[in-house]
């Protein structure tokens, strides 16, 4: 793999050489969310040109449509929920199709929010919510964005950590993020977990407040990824590498300065992209939170796109975690071959090549260790034991291990 000191310096030689992309024009799917920023910047501000690619952004209306696009070839790659890539891989909600996670796009920046009605009835803290969930005659109804999505997992983890069983003690349902505020207004849901700018939007609409950020569940948690089908990566490996380099370059750009973060916020707020007011987007992008409940702070673990490469590595342990939680909540009936699957999906080698070409430092391990809100440590070792280690779960037959192929 050729080393490039300056990506723009030797452009033509690079793209005409043996590493030249096999396919030059790519359709890139994304959802109107703050954490699609690196894709939007890469595609619109010329970051893919030095790597021989033209990126066409294709905004999607649902994760289902995004998934369909990847599977039928209309999309070459896309921003995906971490959980979406693995649910396709494992055949939850679609025929099982080998997937590839090319890189992490962001960490943090999602939120759990409750309705104004809840606030006005005195539910303004975790303790108050727990009391409500346990003693109220009406079951609370909480929304998230996709059955196997990251938001479902943060919501379930948060509830369970507080002793509330997410599948028994409350009703949970999928509501499209664009309709969350309407559902709050109509009293159909008592709260929701979704990506920004929807949390900030609910507060600004006077319809709710932020009870907990996703980073309070797991500081620097994995969130969205750049994903494609395995078939795409096998057919077009140079293209896949060039795509990673483009998005990596854009991710680095966004975090170079506060100025760059602000101009990114301005760009993505546009009607063709996230289509949300700058006032909903920018503050939380800069780590500044106002929760609608008289608290404001600068977060220690704000939304981040690069972190000098810490964010973008497709850690094996990140992919593994989602599989353990699918098992925990009964979405998977048996324990899969965790490491075999993760090693197939996480494109660690391709990512390393791309990072090296850009001079971006690599973490020393493909496993990273984190402490989650309930004190449990997740470091990627023994996923089967971890999946079965929770007090609250929905595992029907704990002895069913190893999914039959």
């Amino acid at each position: 793999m050729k080393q490039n000191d300056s990506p723009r310096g030797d452009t033509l030689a690079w793209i005409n050489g043996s590493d030249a992309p096999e396919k030059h024009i790519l359709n890139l799917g994304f959802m109107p969310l703050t954490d699609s920023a690196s894709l939007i910047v890469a595609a619109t501000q010329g970051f893919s040109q030095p790597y021989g690619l033209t990126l066409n952004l294709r905004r999607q209306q649902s994760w289902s449509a995004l998934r369909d696009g990847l599977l039928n070839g209309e999309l070459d790659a896309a921003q995906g929920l971490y959980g979406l890539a693995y649910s396709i891989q494992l055949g939850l909600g679609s025929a099982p199709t080998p997937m590839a996670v090319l890189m992490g796009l962001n960490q943090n920046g999602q939120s759990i929010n409750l309705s104004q009605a809840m606030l006005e009835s005195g539910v303004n803290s975790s303790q108050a919510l727990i009391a409500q969930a346990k003693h109220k005659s009406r079951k609370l109804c909480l929304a998230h964005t996709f059955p196997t999505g990251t938001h479902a997992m943060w919501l379930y983890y948060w509830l369970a950590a507080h002793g509330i069983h997410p599948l028994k003690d409350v009703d949970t349902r999928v509501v499209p993020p664009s309709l969350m505020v309407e559902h709050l207004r109509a009293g159909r849901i008592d709260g929701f977990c979704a990506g920004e700018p929807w949390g900030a939007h609910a507060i600004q609409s006077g319809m709710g407040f932020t009870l907990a950020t996703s980073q309070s569940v797991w500081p620097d948690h994995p969130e969205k990824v750049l994903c494609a089908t395995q078939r795409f990566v096998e057919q077009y490996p140079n293209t896949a590498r060039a795509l990673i380099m483009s998005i990596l370059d854009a991710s680095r750009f966004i975090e170079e300065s506060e100025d760059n973060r602000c101009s990114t916020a301005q760009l993505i707020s546009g009607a063709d992209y996230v289509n949300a007011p700058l006032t909903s987007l920018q503050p939380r992008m800069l780590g500044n939170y106002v929760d609608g409940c008289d608290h404001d702070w600068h977060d220690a673990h704000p939304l981040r796109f690069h972190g000098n490469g810490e964010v973008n590595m497709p850690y094996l342990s990140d992919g593994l975690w989602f599989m353990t939680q699918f098992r925990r909540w009964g979405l998977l009936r048996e324990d899969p071959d965790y490491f075999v699957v993760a090693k197939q999906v996480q494109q660690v080698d391709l990512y390393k090549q791309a990072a090296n070409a850009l001079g971006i430092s690599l973490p020393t391990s493909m496993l990273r260790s984190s402490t989650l809100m309930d004190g449990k440590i997740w470091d990627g070792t023994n996923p089967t034991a971890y999946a079965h280690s929770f007090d609250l779960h929905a595992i029907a037959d704990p002895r069913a291990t190893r999914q039959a192929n």
Partner: protein
Amino acid sequence: MLRILLINDTVKKVGKLKQALLEAGFEVIDESGLTIDLPARVQSAKPDVILIDSDSPGRDVMEQVCLFSRDLPHPIALFTDEQDPGIMRQAIQSGVSAYIVEGVESSRLKAILDVAMVRFESDQKLRAELHAREQQLSERKRVEKAKGLLMKMKSCDESEAHTLMRRQAMSRQQKLVQVAEQIIAMHEMLGE
């Protein structure tokens, strides 16, 4: 007689299919509105087929309906390319997503998709044409040209010119290539 639930929650107005489907001999339930309680509706209507705009955000709610139904007597699933690829192509071209209850033959879906395709095919064609046009632009050359012009106009180096263009593009929520076209057009208008 097949029972079809039409989810009419987007501008495409899938509900327009109702008349044609009735004439084709299907039983049709038309559910309109933006905040339909989909799971409850599917449970009470007990349809054989559910049709919804492929662009509807409600598709993610349907995802949950399908997942929850897998242990029930009549699981529902998105109609996918496991079946006849010809029918699948037709489904995509119609811009309508079909969810089908287990046991209903996919061949019976063909007649339904024929109706959807006739109704919505032109919308899809327009979108395909738009995308095809887009792919012919050579952005890199336009950006390089504009950069060269800007460097002369402002007596600055390439890096400065690039930064200027990018700042402009981002603040106006435009693509870099759009700003490049503006610079080129301006230069042509003003002459040498």
